[in-house]
């Protein structure tokens, strides 16, 4: 009899894997984006099972928004007739080969280095916050710079585009 936890884990991971498979195979780009959302929600479920409630919500918050952006973007950039031709390229066999190789290697590594496993306690948001802001202050500020760079980059690129018109 498998435990409830394990059952939930399998449900969540089937969401993740199923979503992932759809993302990489589906022809319709918008479907791929929806599949990505499913995979992300599945990941949130995985986070939950690992006692990271806050992270699960973060996952929903950020990817729920980000996926919308991707969809918008896919809508904006793709023509409906492109759905047929644009998805897979000629490297497909190579890609299959490469990913299977990587998968095998990783599997082998996982199986061969059996790790002891034991549960730990959930982390509260307060602990997380204290840790984040006290011990990781510098990376935190750097993160803000990274975001700033992304922001400015996006703004600049878009603005050029504006002038182009």
């Amino acid at each position: 009899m498998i435990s409830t936890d394990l059952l939930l884990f399998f449900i969540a991971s089937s969401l993740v894997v199923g979503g992932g498979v759809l993302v990489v195979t589906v022809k319709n780009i918008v479907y791929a984006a929806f599949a990505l959302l499913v995979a992300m929600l599945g990941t949130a479920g995985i986070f939950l099972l690992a006692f990271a409630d806050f992270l699960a919500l973060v996952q929903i918050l950020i990817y729920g928004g980000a996926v919308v952006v991707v969809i918008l973007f896919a809508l904006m950039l793709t023509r409906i007739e492109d759905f047929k031709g644009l998805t897979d390229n000629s490297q497909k066999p190579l890609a299959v080969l490469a990913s299977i190789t990587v998968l095998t290697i990783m599997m082998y590594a996982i199986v061969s280095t059996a790790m002891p496993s034991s549960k730990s306690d959930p982390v509260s948001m307060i602990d997380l916050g204290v840790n984040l802001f006290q011990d990781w202050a510098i990376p935190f500020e750097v993160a803000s710079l990274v975001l700033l760079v992304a922001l400015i980059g996006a703004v600049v690129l878009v603005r050029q585009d504006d002038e182009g018109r």
Partner: protein
Amino acid sequence: MYDVNWTAVIVVAIVGVLAALGMFLASRIISPRRPSELKDTPYECGIPASPYNWSQIQIRYYVFAILFIIFDVEAVFLFPWAMVFLKDFVSAAVFYEMLIFMAILFFGVIYGWKKGVLQWK
């Protein structure tokens, strides 16, 4: 206890889906159906729909969406911060850290503002 009762969440979600499906199913069974070819065409103010492609670049929405992602991430940091910065066991630096963080990000918005991406002209 900083956690969420996920059982409740999942159950509510299931109930929501089931309720909607129930309504669709009921409607499927008891609503009259009279399919016709014209009924199947998209509504376009009474003119037969013309084909179109999706290639629409609405760059404006995109800028706002990017801004949204960035600020979403910021919100992720802000919530734990709001909960801890007043606690006695954290140092005062935590407070100023976030001010700097916000200042840096806000600089980005001001930059975009000055560059005119918040304007639609």
